């Protein structure tokens, strides 16, 4: 389970951007720079960037009908852990179980693959989705770094 316990010594960031597709790459740079202090491998950085890109793209594409809505990205680091929360106040998800299914998308005409949540789950250690239809969606993810290095001691 996702245990979210920011401590006193925890470093933190919160970023807010409008739901515009040109911000997808910007958010990836920001989360990679924030994760840098965990001294991640290139592979770990790519996995975090991809998971964040999926969640942010979802808020841009599915949550809002125009590009005026806002997306919030919160991140916390402690020891070898990085917690990330991506939230929007858009239209929300009616059926979260169905949304999580691989290949499910409600925008096939836009060439969406329906693999966003599956990739988040594959690349992160935990993914928790909460949503209230009409109010918005929050995706909380946890990544534990340097797992290989640790277990080899």
């Amino acid at each position, binding site marked *: 389970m996702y245990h979210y316990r920011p401590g006193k010594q925890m470093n933190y960031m919160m970023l807010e951007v409008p739901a515009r597709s040109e911000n*997808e790459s910007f958010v990836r740079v920001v989360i990679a720079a924030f994760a840098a202090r965990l001294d991640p491998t290139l592979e770990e950085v790519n996995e975090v960037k991809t998971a964040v890109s999926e969640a942010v793209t979802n808020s841009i594409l599915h949550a809002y009908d125009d590009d005026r809505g806002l997306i919030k990205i919160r991140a916390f680091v402690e020891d070898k852990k990085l917690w990330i929360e991506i939230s929007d106040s858009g239209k929300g998800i009616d059926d979260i179980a169905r949304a999580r299914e691989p290949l499910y998308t409600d925008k096939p005409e836009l060439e969406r693959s329906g693999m966003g949540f599956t990739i988040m789950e594959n690349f992160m250690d935990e993914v928790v989705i909460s949503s209230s239809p009409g109010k918005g969606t929050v995706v909380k993810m946890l990544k534990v770094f340097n797992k290989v290095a640790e277990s080899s001691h």
Partner: protein
Amino acid sequence: MQVQIIRRKKNLIVRLKGELDHHTSLTFRQAVEKELEKEIIQNLIINMENLTFMDSSGIGAILGRYKQFRDRGGKVVICGLSRHNKKILEMGGLLKIIPVCTDERQALENLS
């Protein structure tokens, strides 16, 4: 993302450079569709050697081209796959339907 287009007989080579995400996937789609309008093209080679990032938007964009070329009786081949890009395409099930080559030369041989 930058898209470079090269014609080799009936084959279209598309070299992708930079990051393929939701924002840039339309550039890729439109570049290919523009070529399909004006030229008699059968197959598509997607060179990802200089593609530094891809998310699930890449799966959708490549699957879209795969269907387009399949419906015209042609093929799609991918080359220059990094570890990360390979993982993404694998999750999307694309490696079961699209052949992967190391480079453009091998891809052209595969198609001839």
